[in-house]
């Protein structure tokens, strides 16, 4: 519940990486919540997109990465089109996905060889492709 706010934590390496990949300035966010209000899948997210931005800025990497928000994001760009500060929030979500995908020490990697043939037949194609993207990079 209690967080440290300091030069070390605020706008830390993680936050800067998200900014660099997305090309967005996290400080610019008003925290107005328009993105979360309009997001068609925010009902299923454990953090709203605006909260994710705030958490990133405060350097709360762990909490951001364990949330499901950016995986739920369908990149429909509703948030981006409505942001009063012109932030491309969908890009920020994508940047967070990339931060995870670029990590070497991931434990949740998907081994294609381990998938049963029966599973591969049952699973929808789009889910399989998303799954590969999420788990096999």
């Amino acid at each position, binding site marked *: *519940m*209690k*967080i*440290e*706010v*300091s*030069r070390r934590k*605020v*706008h830390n390496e993680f936050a800067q990486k998200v900014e660099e990949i997305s090309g967005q*300035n996290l*400080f*610019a966010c008003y*925290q107005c919540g328009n993105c979360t209000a309009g997001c068609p899948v925010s009902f299923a997210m454990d953090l709203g997109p605006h*909260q994710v931005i*705030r*958490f990133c*800025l*405060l350097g*709360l990497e762990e909490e951001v990465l364990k949330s499901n928000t950016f995986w739920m994001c369908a990149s429909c760009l509703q948030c981006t089109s409505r942001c009063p500060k012109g932030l491309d929030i969908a890009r920020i979500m994508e940047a967070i996905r990339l931060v995870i995908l670029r990590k070497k020490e991931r434990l949740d990697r998907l081994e294609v060889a381990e998938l049963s043939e029966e599973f591969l037949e049952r699973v929808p194609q789009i889910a399989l492709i998303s799954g590969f993207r999420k788990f096999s990079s």
Partner: protein
Amino acid sequence: MGRVGVVLCPCELEGVPLFNPEVLVEGLKRRGDVLPFIHYPPVCSELGMEAIRAFLEKSELDRAIVTCSKPELFGPTFKKALRQWGLNPSLSEVLGIRPAPERGGLQEATGDVLILIERKIDEIRERVPSKSQGVPFTKRVMVIGGGITGITASIDLGNAGYEVLLVDRLPSIGGRMLQLSETFPTLDCAQCTLTPKTVETGQHSQIRLITYAEIESVSGEVGNFLVKIRRKAAYVDWAKCTGCGLCQEKCPSKVHSEFERGIGPGKAIYTLSPQAVPNKPVINRELCRYFTRGKCRVCEKVCPVGAIDYEQEDTFIEERVGAIIVATGFDLYPKEEIGEYGYGDVPDVIDGLAFERLLSASGPTAGEIRRPSDGRIPKEMVFIQCVASRDPERYMPYCSRACCMYTAKHARLYKHKVHDGRAYIFYMDIRSMGKGYEEFIQQGVEEEGILYLRGRVSRLFRDNDHVVVWGVDTLTGKKVDIAADMVVLATAMIPSHGIRELAEKLHIKTDEYGFLTEAQWKLYPVETGVEGVYLAGCAQGPKDIADTVAQGDAAASKVQALFAQH
């Protein structure tokens, strides 16, 4: 003696009748010396005014009372009208009728109003016509308070050709603005924008400065106020003094300086700044070595013109003026009274004006940001807004209006000077309503990385060489702990001390906090309940420089309009 005309306004204050008009008229008619008059629609309408005029003219009255439910709103209008219709202002009056706090039925209320009016009738019948009719209307103005508001008003009135007496209790003019470093939203140097104004005021042929002086008493009325001023002993003969500054340089004392807000030391003989207008020093009796210990007299020895005079005493001046503008400004709520923020005992917790002195190029650190305790440059810098403002339970319920902006300015100027530092601002709401203000704040956030944390700080305390700040960020819902190097409190603006006594002398009203009450907030913002007395600036309520200057101009134009009628 003729009869007294009583004009009754049947206005129903917020839909509640204040009296029964028929009963009241009957009651008044029982007296032989009264001529009651009632008119529908209410007398404040155009038709009503015309009806009163006709009534007064027809019945040839020389004394009259107009009742009215909102005297602060309609009083000035009626008074002016009565005068125009040829009634002596001292023999006519606008009487405010308000619902009694615990009144019974309409019948009782009517009885109360009748008593009120009858008392006023008796009083007016007793009056002798004031001689002020014959006394010429004095077209001179006194401006009380030489801050940016008073300076603005004085220059306006001086330029209009009227003689202005500008009174300030400090040794020189400039007020609070002279303490500031740079001003939002343009970040102009405050001294560079103000000094030309103070110099213009000092040089103006129509403006006379009476500094280091306080108002002793005020009598008379519009056009003919008699003001007694106490000129405090400066212990320096200003007529001889050339303002060379040698006395200050050689004065051996190092004392608390109110102007530097405790950030840097001052001298017992001092001017407020090297550009002070007038540039003449005064000796602070309480801090001077000679006055406290009986030995020293260094200033006397070094003064090349022999201007030091330890025997000087307060002197009194009497001035006759036609109008008065009160622009006495503000103080900051003392941080010593705020327990949760360390009762002012944590050395690296300072208030906004002290931080202005730290930022100021002419300040004690020459503009370098060094914390008071050990002179280190603070890297974790916390600013707290709404300190003692917006806290009806314990401190002041109102918003102090300027803090959101000056805190953003503080944080930005801090970042301009300490590039690797981080500025955190605790806020409840950001109120940036002026032109260019919101953009100013957003620029600070986006380009300078100022982190706004939404929440109040519950406590701060010293821990080794840090100030621990316990706050919250309600945007994330997380409790926040900051080990800060320095904390700046944006404390509430309160009226400057002594305002209540001054208001009493002027017969004008103050609110429960001591801010001067305007005649009416929306339509008569610089008028008071007393004709000829105007107010401007932070004496009326917290304001930023732009608003306060606008009010100074407004008050000056009101005085010009008043003078133009005579």
